[in-house]
């Protein structure tokens, strides 16, 4: 089982001092230790953006892919080797703009992976433009007059996409976040956590303070995680109070379950040296 100190790499962390990613990475490392996983059981898939650097900073197997494609890569890994515990790390632009295509589809497939979205409501690495989740009025160099369009509500979309584990965390509360990550990972199916991750450099609106003043925990509010409509209602809550925690949870077959041929053996363990195709040839003769 990995220990915290095994999880560091030789890379110097280059996130801005105070960045929400620090809380996020410590929650993740803590979760890995808490889950008691061996290093060879874990794969981290990350996108392009500040969040993508997770691959450089956690000493486990990783696939640092292209912008927006965390989910299909993670899906491929999971199907090829369901024995691996796959974590996707994506950004708000990575997942809700460029990669939006894949989000709802991966969720409805209930791919057995965990997705953690570093939602800083801004394009961090490209120096601060609006994303799908930027607040209306948010001024950036690409929207000098303020973002005009209401933000996307990824939690609601995840619920509507038949999500089986839909949660939101806050990088400013790493302990709570760690517990969410552990639960999402133990969940059989798609464990999704949108994480409020303050970008101290480019997001002047959604600061630690802003979040701290607003977030409250659903579990403390006795929210029923089995009620889809209630979960949706909670997902619309956005103002003085913003919920974090688990919105919705359910059990249903994973994408893997739909392939009975994977039941006994992972694809990666199958013998391919001498595949017999005679039966197919017969049909052609």
């Amino acid at each position, binding site marked *: 089982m990995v220990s915290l100190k095994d999880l560091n*790499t*030789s*890379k110097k962390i280059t996130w801005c001092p105070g960045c929400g990613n620090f809380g996020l990475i410590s929650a993740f490392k803590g979760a890995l230790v808490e889950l008691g996983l*061996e*290093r*060879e*059981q874990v*794969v981290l*898939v990350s996108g*392009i953006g500040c969040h993508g*650097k997770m*691959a*450089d900073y956690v*000493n*486990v*197997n*990783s*696939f*640092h*892919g*292209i912008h927006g*494609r965390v*989910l*299909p*890569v*993670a*899906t*491929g*890994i*999971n*199907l*090829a*080797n369901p*024995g*691996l515990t796959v974590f996707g790390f994506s950004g708000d632009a990575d997942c809700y703009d460029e990669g939006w*295509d*894949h989000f709802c*589809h991966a969720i409805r497939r209930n791919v057995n992976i965990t997705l953690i979205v570093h939602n800083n409501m801004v394009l961090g690495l490209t120096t601060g433009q609006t994303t799908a989740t930027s607040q209306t009025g948010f001024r950036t160099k690409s929207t000098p007059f303020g973002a005009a369009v209401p933000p996307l509500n990824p939690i609601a979309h995840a619920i509507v996409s038949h999500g089986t584990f839909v949660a939101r965390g806050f990088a400013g509360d790493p302990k709570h976040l760690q517990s969410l990550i552990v639960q999402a990972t133990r969940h059989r199916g798609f464990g999704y956590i949108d994480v409020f991750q303050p970008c101290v450099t480019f997001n002047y609106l959604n600061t630690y303070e802003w979040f701290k003043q607003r977030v409250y925990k659903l579990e403390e509010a006795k929210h029923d995680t089995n009620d889809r409509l209630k979960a949706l209602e909670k997902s619309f809550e956005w103002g003085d109070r913003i919920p974090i925690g688990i919105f919705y949870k359910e059990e249903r077959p994973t994408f893997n379950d739909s*392939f*009975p*041929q*994977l039941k006994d*053996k992972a*694809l*990666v363990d*199958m013998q*391919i*040296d*001498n*595949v017999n*195709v005679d*039966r*197919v*040839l017969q049909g*052609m*003769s």
Partner: protein
Amino acid sequence: MKNGDFSFLIGGEAGAGIARAGFLFAKACMRGGLHVFGTNDYQSLIRGGHNFYVARVSDHEVFSQMDFVHLIIALNSETVVLHKNKLAPNGGIICDKDDLSLTPEESSSGLKLYPVPMRKIVIEELKEPHNLIIMNSVALGAATAVTDYDLNLLTELLKETFKPEIAETNIKAAKIGYNYIKEHFEADFEHKLGKTAQPRKPRIFLNGNEAVGLGALRAGCKFYVSYPMTPTTGLLHFMASNERDFNMVIVQPEGEIAAINMAIGAAYAGVRAMTTTSGGGFCLMSEGLGMSGMTETPIVIMVGQRPGPSTGLPTYTAQGDLRFVIHASQGEFPRIVVAPGDVEECFYETARAFNWAEKYQLPVILLADKYVLESEVSTESFDMDKVKIERGLLIRDRYTESRVYGRYEVTETGVSPRAGPSTVGAVVRANSDEHDEFGLVTEDPAVTATMCEKRMRKLYYVKREMEERNIETVKFYSSKDAEATIISWGSTKGPIREAMKLLSAEGRNVNFSQVVYLHPFPKAKVEETISKARKIVAVENNNTSQLSSLIRDHVLRNVDHKILKYDGRPFNPIMLAEKIKEVL
């Protein structure tokens, strides 16, 4: 069968089962020991319009359809109107007796007509007014009778193809059609198939999609992901139908971007993975292609060309994407592009593609087209022993070296030992950013240059292996006293080989250099095949002669003539032979 050659065409509306009927009759011919090439011409619609299937049947090997046909099986009158000019002397037409628009005009034109009341038979005799598609079985029965062929071969196939009740009706229909001809017409059709001998060697009848599929199955492809796109959809269907028997995972995802990224994920995890598409989908895959190159993740991509640009003619054929697939995606990285020209190459090159991909840890593109993927041909069954699985430097289960594992270790060949993520003792990092040996991001200029060279070096070793193992990167079909050398690639191979036969029958000989591997370009071999040519003639299904551009680029030589066709249709042999003669 005069000159040992017979061609038929069956035509009608989309939805009338044209392709299936043509396929069945063609396959029946193969079962009877004949050689067959059949190809389907259809529009981008589901019902209506005009589809036809044309097949050539012969007692010797055939590589393409012919310009003319001996028998037209017309399921509607439009078929006659559109195709009667293709009829060979003394050819015949089977048509619906009650398709009145026919009789006045056509019967007086000297065409040999075999009117059969197909529709009436289906409605009145078979009592299937809502299943007019059965007309085609009536027609096939009639065709069997006209050509004096063995009806059992057909009925046997109908039995294998359909569920019992449906098979029964169709067999009945075929018999009625057969008997109708025997009863109402003289047995004087000149182009008889006659009773045929038993097949000599076990043969199969399949199209390029199926051959690629067979190659993938045999090569141990375990993960196949594809978003439907003509002309590769047939392969998706083939793979899906074999999914469980072969313990594969087949995914039809939300689009081509997902497709290639899933394939890369699966390949990173350690399985052989493949995706297929056509040009538009390949555009969407091009970013992933570059990621495969950069992360050195082996994948096989089959691209089925069709006429572009853009949506173009979705159900027709072209060779317009050669340069695109060679250069797709930003930056420079090694890839292999191979263009199978017939079903045999579809099979063997697909199987081999997985070896190339894994041994050199790069993307391999199989560049096919509608014509080769959707034309059926009879062929000797493939030799499974020729397919060897070579996975290259693959670390299994446990990494035991003392030094820390580096996924991108810089080696002489540029190929680094590849471990899967579940390997104990190795942290396996793939990275689309420039990276060091351990897969950690780098921006260092020296490391950048080193890694670029490491990756590019692989192509040198690919070329070396190709030479050492004598891979047929170029196939040369020589003739004595050749007046010229045709050079081409991909599916034009069939019509060219037929045209060569026609030309040599006239005492005009040409060589044919088929470039099978387009990238890395087999410069030396191409040079060799064209260096002594009296004339070089490029034949391509495109407008700009992309192969010529590659030849100029690599061999510094202009071809002397270009014969180009870019109307969505394959070359026909006679027409092609004429064009070649014009430039000789």
